[in-house]
């Protein structure tokens, strides 16, 4: 960062006081990221980005609004404070608006790694070339990304909150394409050394080879074995509903379901910012420490996330899951850990007489907000399982599946991993074997 967060916040406070406002909050977020992208067995897009943003929220007379800038000179800082105050004074008074948060102690998490922060274009290119080589050796074509990111985030307010956090993230994703089939693998980690691009490339190539000459099966209900990325991208769609604000506004599928058994007895889900496989700050967008939540316990919906305002309205305690104010969504658990079981993919296959193994889902969208029906496609590695073995690749299916029903039909779970997909953020999830999964159509490949 060009200057310390405290020094910048000092300028924010001075500028606010000069305008007669004493309640002010600032967020300083800095990000340096790079991404090496490849397709057709060659690097084709190769980018880097560096940005710092200052965001200021003023609170005055029950009103609040936010202004942001990525210029950090003294004049720009004064300008963004004046802008925040000007629009705050023009907004409507909200009797339910909470005062700024008070200081609190935060759990220690360590998620910044020099190995990731110091990665170079040449280092990423070498790893990509090696991964492409593995796919080319299988007679296939590779496409994917290798990205690294270093970010820091500081939230300070005039009541003394001074919360800061930094982390690094590395991601590798690869699609291997054969003549009429494809395979995919992806992983993300805070420490780049936890990624193995070559192994991911080999896994994608194996899937592409195994799924060649795909058969067309009729749509219908099948037993499915969902790899962790498939579980993540589908089940991950429901967590915005574990929100006090969403429930109060009637947009959550948990209305009239809290405390009830909604899912099968083998489904237990926590939100845990300190889990060793998780990432992200241990405090929320107002500076409240993130509490560990038991969202689902043995199929019964238990805890709900509450921002400070949602908690006050519900007569509950804030859980540390609020987004920076003002916002339209309230709060959401973002460190999901779905408890695993004692099974594993090979064991799930061995116990399946006839079913479908799914590598990943794609283009998942909500069809019914209360029954939590989602539609989407399988992609990049969909297999027929017969008599305990992978029998063939199959043409991709469209599904229309209720999550309430699906999570009541889970027959077994694997141990948990940190999974990366394309439809939601990374979570810690197991693979799942699910009966009666609803495939409604088949596409042309």
């Amino acid at each position, binding site marked *: 960062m060009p200057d310390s967060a405290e020094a910048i916040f000092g300028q924010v406070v001075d500028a606010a006081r000069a305008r007669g406002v004493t309640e002010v909050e600032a967020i300083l977020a800095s990000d340096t990221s790079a991404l090496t992208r490849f397709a*057709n067995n*060659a690097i084709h897009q190769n980018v*880097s980005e560096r940005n710092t943003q200052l965001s200021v929220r003023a609170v005055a007379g029950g*009103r609040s609004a936010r202004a942001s*800038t990525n210029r950090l000179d003294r004049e720009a800082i004064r300008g963004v404070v004046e802008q925040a105050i000007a629009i705050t004074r023009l907004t409507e008074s909200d009797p339910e608006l909470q005062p700024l948060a008070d200081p609190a102690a935060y759990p220690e998490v360590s998620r910044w790694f020099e190995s990731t922060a110091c990665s170079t274009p040449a280092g990423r290119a070498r790893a990509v070339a090696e991964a492409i080589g593995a796919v080319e050796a299988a007679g296939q074509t590779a496409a994917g990304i290798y990205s690294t990111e270093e970010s820091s985030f500081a939230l300070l307010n005039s009541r003394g909150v001074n919360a800061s956090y930094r982390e690094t993230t590395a991601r590798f994703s690869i699609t291997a394409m054969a003549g009429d089939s494809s395979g995919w693998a992806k992983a993300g980690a805070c420490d780049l050394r936890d990624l193995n691009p070559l192994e991911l490339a080999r896994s994608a190539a194996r899937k592409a080879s195994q799924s060649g000459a795909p058969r067309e099966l009729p749509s219908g209900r099948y037993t499915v074995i969902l790899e962790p990325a498939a579980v993540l991208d589908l089940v991950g769609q429901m967590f915005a509903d574990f929100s006090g604000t969403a429930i109060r506004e009637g*947009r959550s599928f948990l209305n009239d379901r809290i405390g009830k058994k909604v899912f099968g007895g083998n489904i237990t889900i926590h939100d845990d910012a300190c889990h060793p496989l998780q990432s992200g700050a241990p405090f929320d967008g107002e500076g409240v420490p993130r509490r560990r939540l038991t969202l689902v316990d043995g199929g019964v919906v238990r805890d709900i996330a509450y921002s400070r305002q949602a908690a006050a309205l519900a007569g509950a305690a804030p859980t540390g899951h609020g987004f920076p104010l003002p916002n339209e969504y309230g709060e959401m658990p973002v460190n999901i850990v779905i408890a695993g079981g004692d099974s594993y993919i090979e064991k799930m296959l061995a116990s399946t007489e006839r079913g479908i193994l799914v590598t990943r889902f794609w283009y998942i969208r909500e*069809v019914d907000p209360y029954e939590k029906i989602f*539609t989407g496609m399988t992609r990049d590695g969909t297999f027929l399982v017969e008599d305990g073995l992978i029998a063939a690749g199959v043409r991709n299916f469209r599904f229309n599946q209720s999550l309430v029903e699906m999570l009541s039909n889970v027959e077994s779970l694997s141990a948990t991993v940190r999974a990366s997909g394309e439809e939601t953020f990374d979570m810690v999830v197991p693979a799942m074997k699910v009966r009666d999964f609803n495939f409604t159509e088949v596409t042309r490949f």
Partner: protein
Amino acid sequence: MKDLAWRALDAVSRPGVTYADVRAIETRDRDVTTRNGKAGNVACSESQGIGIRVLASGCWGFAASSDLTNEGIERAARLAIEIARSGVAAKKADVSLAPESSYQATWVSPCAIDPFSIPVDQNLAALLAVDAELRRNPAISLAETAMRFVWQRQVFASTLGSLIDQTRTTSGAGFSALCYKNGEIQKRSFPNSVGGQHQLKGYELVQELDLPGHAARIAEEAVALHSAPQCPEGERDLILDSSQLGLQVHESIGHPVELDRVLGSEANYAGMSFLTLDRLNHLRYGSAIVNVVCDARLEHGPGLGTFAFDDEGVPAQSTDIIRAGQFTGYMTSRETAAAVGQARSNGCMRADGCARLPLIRMTNVSLLAGEQSLEEVMGADHAIYMETNRSWSIDDKRYNFQFGCEIAWEMRHGKRVRMLKNPSYSGISTEFWNACAAIAGREHWTLWGVPNCGKGQPEQVMGTGHGASPARFHKIKIGSAYAG
């Protein structure tokens, strides 16, 4: 800004660099929303930055920075070149670009009322009036309203000698009413879902939409859906309103004709396309009344995809994508045009701000108006009429799609006979467009804005335009979202 772009171009013009372009961008935006009678998100932001794209050692490199000091620009330029040279480790061939001329131009999009000249309290007052009208209906659980305004000035400079200064103002506004009752959620939106209508206009767009005039009906429909019968399953003649048809064009025509998808650049994320090169000028994409263009020119209308030059300095153009049902054109860039032997890019490279590399993106991909009257479109013996998108999904080669809408009516001889809830339809892209039986005329044609089109890694969100008028399709599979 021009000085900034020149400085960055100077910094990157070094031995071994065969081409470079720079985009210096300044952006201001404002979001104002309300929820259930209170201000929701009230926020504004401004940003400045540069994006430097360079071709060296036959590979692309790109670096962006918000540090606009001489040191910051130098660092970004050096990094862009270092990144380009690193690509040699996995290179198959040198990048080659279709030729393009050099341009000196200044262009400002039409904007009758500067939206930033309207005070925030007036935005809020207008939205709260709509919110109050929605909640006059006691069954509404959540009333949401929104306005969004973006002003962006971009100076593009390239080693071809181009210097292009473009300023665009876009506005968006809309509202929705949600009703939760007895274990069921129903929602209606106006004039469209995903935040309403978005166009290349100033505050005059908000005035034209007449949001308050539609609030009572929308709230009433959200509540009435609870007691409407479920949309049936089966094959029916299907009529789509123009906003839903705009999204249908976006997903099942716009994305498949992106030539970078066809050539595999997006294979790991957004996917590829069924429109392989052998299908150009040979595929019967739709029925004979289907005509689709990709048109970024102002004469097409004030779309989110309207500009004077794309983000690699190519002038706005109009390309026939489907002519009388025949597939006739892709959207291209200088690189992809060269790759398939075309003489020139048709100007579809767009970037989500200075920190992102330009990609082939839809400009305004529009279904041209038909020759039928609205009465002829609606006048089938028996049909289902669906309005306002609720969900959208399509496979990664763009064959199989499924859309859900907020509301539908069973139609007999052009008359609405009953409301239906949870409508959906599905199909295969080319089969769907070949089933197009009637398209309403120009007076019913609307250029819709899709503000949230995602593509690329790192992901970029782009606004695209899609003109359409209501149309009827023969024997389409409906109700599939609730099948099984």
